[in-house]
């Protein structure tokens, strides 16, 4: 069986979880084994109907009290219990902050190989072959498995979301015997409505060329018009113009949107490491020799303080 950790929070399924279940469904036909989604934690029952849209053969629901608060070890135990009971051979996680926290513990529990943040998944001779960029995107590693159980975490926005409604059996699993060690005692979410950087289909990023924090509203407005999120280079973050949670790159977030718009960013290798797998890259830079143009699908040589407002204007006229 293929098991997918279908991350939810308060009954709302994460987009990355939908992608993971979609990929599980595709693998299920390639490997000719059933696929099941596991939803756990407070409100998990509320996410069951949504998860059915992506075609699982079964849904496991773990909603016991010890998992009311997020706990990496508690969630891992619940997941590993289902995996062992069902004899799972493949376990998929979204590479979200939760997936990345929980998956290695599950791997240790079920003695599985785990490949993180993958951008490609294939089947050869009944086993998985996972690909991921390594060394700041300077090489691509293809990783095979020696273990019977094969685990991966899937990079957001890479694996297509595919609706494929099914009527799976919903199995309630008792997790009341779990006693978590690390527990989330509080969660603080910033004001809603903002698109999450790692999940955004469009990312508009600003670098040192933005000149100061007072200019970031320029790209915030552009991002909003495109339904996207705001990113930044390390230079902009280190200068204190924008919070580190927006940093894209080697020591920031890895994003893979449909469109990445780099404004006043030179294109250092450590920055490319975080956005090189974007489908389309648009660069706006006044230096025609900036390395960012080497990876840009569309390059605009010009002053961002003129081009960005003109673009915003043009987009507003569309609506």
């Amino acid at each position, binding site marked *: 069986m293929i098991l997918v950790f279908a991350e939810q929070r308060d009954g709302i399924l994460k987009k990355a979880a939908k992608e993971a279940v979609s990929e599980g469904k595709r693998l299920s036909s390639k490997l000719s084994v059933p696929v099941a989604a596991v939803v756990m934690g407070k409100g998990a029952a509320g996410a069951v109907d949504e998860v059915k849209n992506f075609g699982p053969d079964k849904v496991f629901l773990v909603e016991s009290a010890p998992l009311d608060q997020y706990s990496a070890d508690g969630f891992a135990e619940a997941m590993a219990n289902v995996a062992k009971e069902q004899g799972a051979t493949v376990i998929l996680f979204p590479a979200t902050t939760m997936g990345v926290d929980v998956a290695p513990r599950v791997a240790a529990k079920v003695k599985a190989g785990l490949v993180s943040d993958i951008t490609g998944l294939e089947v050869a001779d009944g086993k998985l072959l996972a690909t991921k960029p390594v*060394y700041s995107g300077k090489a691509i590693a293809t990783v095979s498995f020696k273990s019977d159980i094969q685990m991966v975490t899937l990079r957001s926005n890479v694996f297509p979301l595919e609706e494929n409604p099914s009527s799976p059996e919903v199995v309630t699993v008792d997790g009341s015997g779990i006693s978590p060690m690390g*527990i989330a005692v509080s969660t603080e979410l910033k004001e809603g409505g903002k698109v999450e950087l790692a999940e955004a289909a469009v990312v508009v990023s600003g670098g040192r060329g933005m000149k100061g924090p007072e200019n970031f509203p320029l790209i915030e407005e552009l991002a909003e018009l495109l339904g996207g999120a705001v990113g930044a280079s390390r230079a902009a973050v280190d200068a204190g113009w924008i919070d580190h949670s927006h940093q894209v790159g080697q020591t920031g977030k890895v994003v893979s949107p449909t469109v990445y718009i780099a404004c006043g960013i030179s294109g250092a290798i450590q920055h490319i490491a975080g956005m090189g797998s974007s489908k389309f890259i648009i660069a706006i830079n006044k230096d025609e020799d900036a390395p960012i143009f080497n990876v840009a699908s569309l390059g*605009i040589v010009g002053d961002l303080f003129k081009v960005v407002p003109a673009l915003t204007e043009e987009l507003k006229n569309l609506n």
Partner: protein
Amino acid sequence: MNFLVFVKQVPDTETKIQIAGDGKSIVEEGVNFIVSPYDEIAIEEALLRKEALGGEITVVTMGPNRGEAALRTALAMGCDKAVHLEDDAFLGADSYATAKALAAVVKKYSPDLVFFGKQGVGTDNTQVGQMVAEMAGLGHIGMCVKLEIEGDKVRGEREIEGGRETIEVSLPAVVVAQKGLNEPRYPALRGIMQAKRKPIEKLTVADLGLSADEVGLAGSRTEFASLTLPPAREAGKKLEVEPEVAAKEIVAFLKNEAKAL
């Protein structure tokens, strides 16, 4: 309080990467190796805690002989002693086999607090800290950007999508350091001199009570099948035009090619 810090030696991110003849590894010659940047944050956090609470910091690396340089850097920053897991049997480990060896170190030294970096830069697995916590039976705080120790409890904030969450765990525990936790110090000249006299203990597989097939390549659950150069990203068109024209071009691109409008 006793602290363990795990550090990995990685190629400098500026380094030119060449794929070796076996098609699975990189050519090490000419590569500048550094302490993984996240591990510097882990070291710094241990130093800050020791300064506040007292105790001793042991820094640990697993790797070939060159790994000693990483330990010297950590000692120069202020760690007290070092352990080098150096044995041919450790070579070629994936995260699982790495964690197996490191968890044995945790069990051997029974520290109060164990620090890891979020990821070994380059391979970027983001697994080893969590795996060691699991194998050693400890709770952990993942991707920690703020840490408080109060009695036998540790509370850490971690970044999540759209916000932060606070994780509480009892000591002994594992903390996985994320950027933002602190600003690592540079080793001072005095520290570098002192580091030369600090002890580095060498441990083999047998010293850890493990067998050779549990670690290294033999104990790995995954294997690099191949390492290839990424497909060159083709640069598209580059335009130097009036802002209004540029804006129209971008909109047309977003509509027709990216289908994002």
